Each structure stands twice: as C-alpha cells, then as structure tokens.
C-alpha cells in the first residue's frame, strides 16, 4: 500500500480552505488535529439515526447507542492493546483522566512526606493535579530535570525515585520538545520498587504505536481530539487491579448499583468512573477515528511524518538566527524554535497572514520555558496529512518575518 498524500488530504475537508486568502497550512496539530470525513460522518449519523441515552433505555435507539458506545470502548482497547474493555474509562480528555488518577489513586495512597515524581517537561495538566493533591495530603512533588537537548536526565530519575515515591507521572512524548521518553526503562525502574507509573500519552498516541501491555504502564491517558477524533472525550487506561481498588472520582448517575439515603453501592468497572451521561457521540467518534487510522497504515504515516520532521528541521536550521529548542535524539513531529530579535507572538501573527497556522506561547509548560530561558517559543507540529510543500511555504513565510523585523 502506497502512502497517497493526495488521497489522504481529500479525507480532511477542512484542509481545503484558504486563510487570509492563502491556502491554509495547518502546522498546529499538537494543539488539536483535524478530523477525517469518516469521523464527521459518524457524528452526523449518530445524531440523525441513533441518538439516545445509554445503559438505561429499553427502546431500540438506546440499544443502538449503547452498543455503539461500548463498541468504541472495545476499539480503544484493541488500539492500545489493553487486556480487557473494562480497563478503558472514557473521560473528558487527558486532563480529566489525570485528575481522576490524582484524586482516586493519589488521595488514598499519599500521606505526609510521601512523594509524587514528575518531570520538568510536563504539560500543566500533568503538574497541577499532582500539586493539588500533594498540597492536600502534605506530600511532596519531585521533578526530574531535562538536559540541554531536552532529554530526561535518567541518572536523576533514578536518584529521585525513592522509598517515599508513591507514583511516577511522566509524558510519553513532550508537546514542546517532541522528545520521546524512554518510558519502558522508566517503568521497569519504578516497578522494581513497586511504584506505579502514569504515562501522559496526549501527544504520543497520534505518532507512536502504543501497546500498554508491552509497556506495562499502570495508567495511560490521552485525548481523542489529538488523535483525529472529536473534542470533549478522552481515555484513561488503568490496570484492572488498581482501578478496582480506587474509589469513584465523581458521584452521580450510571456509576451506581443501588442508592438509598443511607448507603450507595458503586457500579462495576468501567462505569464506576463514568458518572453522568458521558460524551456518547464523542466516544463513538473516537472509535471512528481509530477505524480510519486502521485504513491508512500507521507505519507508513509515521514514516512520512519522520521524513517531514527531518526536512523541516534541516531547512529551519539553515536560517540564521533560528534556535531549535528540543534536539533529543529520539523525537517526533514537534519543533519548537525561537528567532533572534523577534518575539514568537509576532512570528505567529505574520505567519497567520500567510495562511500558516502555528502555535506560539508557553504551550502550557511554563516550568520548561524557564528551564530553557525563554518566555515563549514558536512551535510547528506535524500530522501525516502535511506535505513538503507546506514546509516550504512555512519557511518562505518565516523569511518574511525576518524581512519585517530586519
């Protein structure tokens, strides 16, 4: 099967538009990715044909909706190679999934003086929930530093992994640096001390083949919207034994078995963690995104992305004044950079006028910005539907930025 970029781009109708009169060049995929027609069609079809609440109706629509929702769960299960469907919890996204673990795993397991180990390259959503629960429990947040290339200092990780560490939470792939972390090694080291590991897969899920069983991670979290699916839905994978032992995150409908004013018994997994009407269409849309990805040959897509990354890195580096932040040996799809004498925000505005969409700012990783001594960066992030021509347009536009600020 050949990787046919023209055909692939046809599946993403949003890419066809003009921005400020120029062809849209979308290089902000790490913020959110676009949705293939298959996903859009599935959403429309759900609302036109099957819309109903799940797990409670006796009627045929509810039956179909429930079936589609649970089928989506199974698709996620197989996509990340989880053992069982009840290890897949639908959440609102990565952020909610991490908060769930921080609250339901963190609160019962953290006591005064205990430690949570994260890294310097985490997204705020893998920092703040831990900070909150640490503060509540009198526990300490420990942070593994990164080196100048933007790689984790594994020597420091081993030092910081102590008898007081109760959980390790680390990103599988950095949204700022593109760094792919040696998570297998991290998990092995942590498991030697019986410490569970949560992987933030928000970025990795769209670029790497994820196998939670092989990784042996205890929790894996990601958002559908970065995986070509809809916003407002995400996934918490957790090992069954851990999930079983955890108290519910939120109370409400669907998560109960029986309720009296004296006592409520909770539903089984995964429903224990899915209080209230979930994002039914969203979950089904995520299932459709996974189905779509199966049709395109993930390995070829990843190869195409790697080629684009290499090409973009090379051409960017040849522009005087450009500094790339994040030069890890093992990285994917993301390039953060600064341009001497020009603030990233100004780069973003000028590129936008050329139809090129990039992200500028701190990327929800302020501690990392501080580490690299920059207030903000400009960032391009690639998806398999991007092309070499788009990289060329981006580079030409960047030269325009230099013109304006010469």
């Amino acid at each position, binding site marked *: 099967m050949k990787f046919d970029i023209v055909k692939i781009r046809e599946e993403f109708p949003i890419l066809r538009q003009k921005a*400020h*009169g120029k062809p849209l060049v979308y290089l902000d995929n790490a913020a959110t990715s676009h949705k293939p027609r298959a996903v859009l069609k599935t959403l429309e079809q759900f609302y036109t044909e099957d819309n109903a609440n799940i797990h409670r109706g006796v009627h045929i629509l509810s039956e179909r909706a429930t079936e589609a929702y649970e089928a989506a769960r199974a698709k996620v299960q197989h996509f990340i190679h989880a053992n069982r469907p009840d290890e897949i919890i639908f959440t609102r996204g990565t952020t909610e999934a991490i908060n769930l673990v921080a609250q339901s795993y963190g609160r019962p397991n953290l006591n005064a003086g205990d430690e949570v180990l994260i890294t310097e390259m985490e997204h705020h959503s893998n920092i703040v929930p831990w900070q909150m629960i640490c503060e509540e429990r009198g526990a300490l947040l420990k942070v593994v530093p990164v080196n100048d290339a933007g790689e984790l200092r594994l020597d420091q990780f081993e030092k910081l992994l102590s008898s007081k560490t109760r959980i390790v939470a680390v990103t599988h792939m950095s949204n700022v640096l593109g760094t792919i972390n040696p998570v297998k090694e991290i998990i092995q080291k942590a498991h030697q001390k019986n410490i569970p590991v949560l992987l933030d897969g928000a970025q990795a899920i769209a670029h790497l083949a994820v196998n939670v069983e092989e990784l042996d991670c205890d929790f894996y979290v990601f958002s559908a919207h970065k995986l070509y699916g809809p916003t407002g839905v995400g996934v918490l994978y957790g090992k069954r034994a851990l999930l079983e032992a955890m108290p519910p995150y939120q109370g409400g409908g669907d998560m109960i078995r029986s309720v009296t004013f004296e006592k409520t018994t909770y539903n089984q997994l995964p429903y224990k963690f899915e209080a209230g009407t979930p994002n039914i269409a969203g979950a089904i849309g995520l299932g459709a995104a996974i189905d779509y990805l199966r049709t395109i040959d993930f390995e070829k897509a990843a190869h195409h992305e790697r080629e684009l990354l290499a090409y973009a890195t090379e051409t960017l580096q040849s522009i005087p004044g450009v500094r790339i932040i994040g030069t890890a040996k093992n990285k994917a799809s993301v390039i953060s950079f600064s341009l001497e*004498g*020009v*603030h*990233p*925000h*100004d780069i973003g*505005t*000028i590129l936008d*006028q050329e139809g090129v969409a990039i992200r*500028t*700012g*701190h990327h929800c990783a*302020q501690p990392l*910005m501080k580490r690299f001594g920059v*207030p*903000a960066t400009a960032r391009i992030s690639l998806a398999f539907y991007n092309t070499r021509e788009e990289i060329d347009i981006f580079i030409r536009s960047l030269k325009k930025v230099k013109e*304006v*600020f010469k």
Partner: protein
Amino acid sequence: MNDLKDLYQEVILDHNKRPRNFCKLQQANHHAEGYNPLCGDHIDIYLQMEGDLIKDISFEGSGCAISKASASLMTDTLKGKTREKAETLFDGFHQMVTGGTGPAGKEIPQEMGKLAVFSGVREFPARVKCASLAWHTFHAALENRHEAVSTEEEDLNGKPAQQS
C-alpha cells in the same frame, strides 16, 4: 485582507528595537507589575508622581513587538502629563485598539498623537491585549496595586475587572 504594514508600522518596529524609557526608575514612588499569561509577556511600570503630575515614567520587561512598542510609546507620551490627561489618553487608546475609533469607526482624536500608530491593532483581535498590557499596568501603578495585573482578568466585555 489585513495588512501587516498597518500592524507593524515603522514607528512600532523602531520602538521595539530601541525602547525608550527602558529602565528601572530609581526615584519611583509608584510601581506595578503586569502579566499576560497567554503569551508570557511581563512588564514593570515605574512612576514618579508629584501630586497629580507624572514627573517621570519608565518600564522594564519582556514581550512581543506590539507590547514593547506600546509600553515605550506610552511612557514617551505620558511623561510630564497630568493624571487626568493620562486617563483620557487611556480611554482613547482603549477605544482605538478595540475598534471604537479610527478608519472603520469614528476619527481618531488629534490628541492621541503618535499613539495613533496602534490603530492597526484592531484588525488583529489576538493582539489587542499585547497593546493594552502597558496601559493596564500603568493604571495599576497609579493606584500602587501590589498584585500583578493580568490581561486575563478582564471581564467578557474586555474591560479590566475591578480589583480590590
């Protein structure tokens, strides 16, 4: 199409490159800190007030060209003005960058002087906060507020929220 030249006018680029009054004012008796959490821009405004007169004013910080030039031109403009005049200019500036005056709306009042170079900002909604950060921070400095002002503390109508 919005023209980049309307946004990045020569005067703005010049003030970005060589900001005026870019220092810490030793004799300052008023100070405030401003912050734009969305892009990390950060600014300190120092004021030396003599009664109602802005005897001297300076700024320090880091930010994009628009926010830096805005701070630079603001300090240039406000030096030697009264508090009342400054408030009028603040209102005028706010109107201008949010679209109340200028080519599309009413005419920009003469008294805005050099500040009129920021009239292009209104075509770039994402940059309005960059242009107004210095002014909000100046306002906070007048009141000697101790908490940093943030561009995200505006209400949904774009007015800075009242702080206690």
